């Protein structure tokens, strides 16, 4: 099992750092899955996470100048690692002016991801900062726990409003209530509602647009037959929503959510070379 990668381009490095920062805000510990062409940051829905799950996919070619990976075995050419993304985020934080960043999987005393940052200096040789981030190797028998979640059979799919606006609204609502109701319909309308003993606040968004999902075998027919005005809603933990919105450092190219009434809300945020899916289950 080997892994080595190198980033030389500063723009790629900053982009990668931003992705890691976003992941770090969403999960304390997560799984990093490495394949020949992609990296995945995965959080599977355990009770400990409050039932949220996350799937983030990056094309390695868009970030790394060099990428070599040899998985556990020839027919299973992948590596699954458990790590604390905050560590990776910290390691990259002071690498903003780096000449190169190399990441390597090592096993000196224990498995680590060694991030070596080469920094410019006035002297003849560059400064090297190495960060050894401890990781856990996830054995093959557990890989099934980390499969890509399928798109749920949703009732409504709608594009999200401008994330910055949504974020500031949710942040203020967070002070008033622990849970928030997201409801939307197929006419591009979405409402964010909170209700407490003292006050109820609703923010209305319109003209958001609904993404068209290619119906594969009529399985989306439940959405198509739906009355355009009727709202699908789910009550979710407001902190989880706020975390998701606060973690976004760059505006996504596309941002949408799929609501399964009273069950789960599936958020999809797409950037050019990164896709992030986040599932927040509805509260009982």
């Amino acid at each position, binding site marked *: 099992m080997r892994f080595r990668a190198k980033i030389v381009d500063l723009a790629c490095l900053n982009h990668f750092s931003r992705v890691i920062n976003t992941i770090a805000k969403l999960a304390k510990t997560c799984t990093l899955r490495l394949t020949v062409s992609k990296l995945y940051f995965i959080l599977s829905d355990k009770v400990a996470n409050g039932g949220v799950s996350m799937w983030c996919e990056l094309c390695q070619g868009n970030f790394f100048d060099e990428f070599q990976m040899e998985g556990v075995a020839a027919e299973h050419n992948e590596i699954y690692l458990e790590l604390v993304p905050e560590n990776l985020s910290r390691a990259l934080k002071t690498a903003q002016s780096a000449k190169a960043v190399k990441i390597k999987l090592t096993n000196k005393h*224990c498995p680590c991801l060694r991030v070596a940052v080469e920094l410019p*200096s006035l002297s003849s040789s560059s400064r090297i*900062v190495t*960060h050894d981030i401890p990781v856990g190797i996830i054995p093959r028998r557990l890989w099934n726990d980390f499969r890509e979640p399928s798109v749920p059979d949703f009732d409504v799919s709608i594009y999200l409003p401008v994330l910055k606006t949504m974020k500031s609204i949710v942040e203020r609502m967070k002070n008033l209530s622990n849970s928030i109701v997201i409801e939307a319909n197929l006419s591009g309308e979405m409402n964010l509602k909170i209700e407490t003993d003292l006050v109820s606040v609703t923010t209305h968004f319109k003209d958001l647009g609904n993404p068209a999902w290619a119906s594969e075998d009529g399985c989306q027919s439940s959405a198509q037959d739906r009355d355009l005005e009727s709202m699908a809603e789910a009550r979710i933990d407001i902190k989880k929503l706020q975390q998701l919105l606060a973690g976004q450092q760059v505006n996504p190219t596309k941002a949408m959510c799929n609501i399964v009434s009273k069950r789960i809300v599936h958020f999809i945020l797409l950037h050019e070379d990164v896709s992030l899916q986040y599932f927040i289950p509805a509260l009982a």
Partner: protein
Amino acid sequence: LSRIGDELYLEPTESGLSLRAVNSSRSAFASFLFAPLFFQLYEPGSHQPDRELVRCKVLMKSFLGVFRSLPSLEKMVGKCLILLKPRANRLVVQLHCKYGVTKTHNLAFQECELLQAVFDTQHCASSLRAPARVLVEAVVHFPQTLAEVTLGAGPGGKISLRNYVEDEAAPSKTMVTELRLAEDEFQTVAVTPGSHITFCLKEFRGLLTFAEASNLPLTIHYDAPGRPVIFTLEDTVLEVHLVLATLSDPESDLQPPTANGVSHLPAPSDDFADDLESYMIAMETSAYEDGPSGVPPSPTFPLCTPHPAESDPEEKEEGAVPGTPPHKKFRSLFFGSVLTPRGPSPAPTQEVLAEDSDGE
């Protein structure tokens, strides 16, 4: 200085005004000596030649409160006068500002003993000198919350800085960051190959900020682990020393510590004249047991008092104040008289200089 202690010690001497601070666990000491030339007017003492120069200490917070806002000070204040009024027990700081406004602050002070750490840069085996900027850039890679850092002279002439991980914590849980600097980033390098020293980052960062602001190179003197590390800054009118206790290496052999040639203070009790290093090891082993073995007697530290006749009961009080537990393994105190090697197993009732009341 406020990063180190809660009290500011002022000592006017013939060679300048010395401002000092020490932290509660006596593991960090700093002194800033301003030469008379730094001041427009400098009168160290009363005009009676046989009267001792007054030394006093004030609360750091009160003193800092006078100089609270730096930008407004720069704009408004023309002159600052600092006066000691021993009879009124007041330290007077007068700010003469623009437009004829004079702000007078009367701070209460306490007379105190000389506060002086025992250290000697000449006897340090290794030293390094670098522009403050290089060290500031080095330290930025470590998180603000990091307590201890290890400086080492590594192979290939590289100087390394690494975060110190407690042995008790699982080594596979903590991220380790290491920075390697080439020797030519430093202005002077005179280190013992393979040497290393571990000290607390917080007070060091404080000094670095000052060094960077004043654009002075910083010199680091260190010796074996356990012996203090000394940071100095110098220019024509200012001499700064920061002395930090360092982590001793439990596995290393106990070398008989060298006498630093400073005045010996008769220790308050027999235990006291003991080898600090073996005492430190005693502390570390007792830390692994559950709970302290017997109540440690109230810690004192030997102050270097060249005029023992001066000391009055009040000053003994000061030394007897128990220190708050220092960072986990820093029990080393470097204020010391001559250290003599001790017998093999240290007694658990040995006087604790800075007890860790929580146990580890």
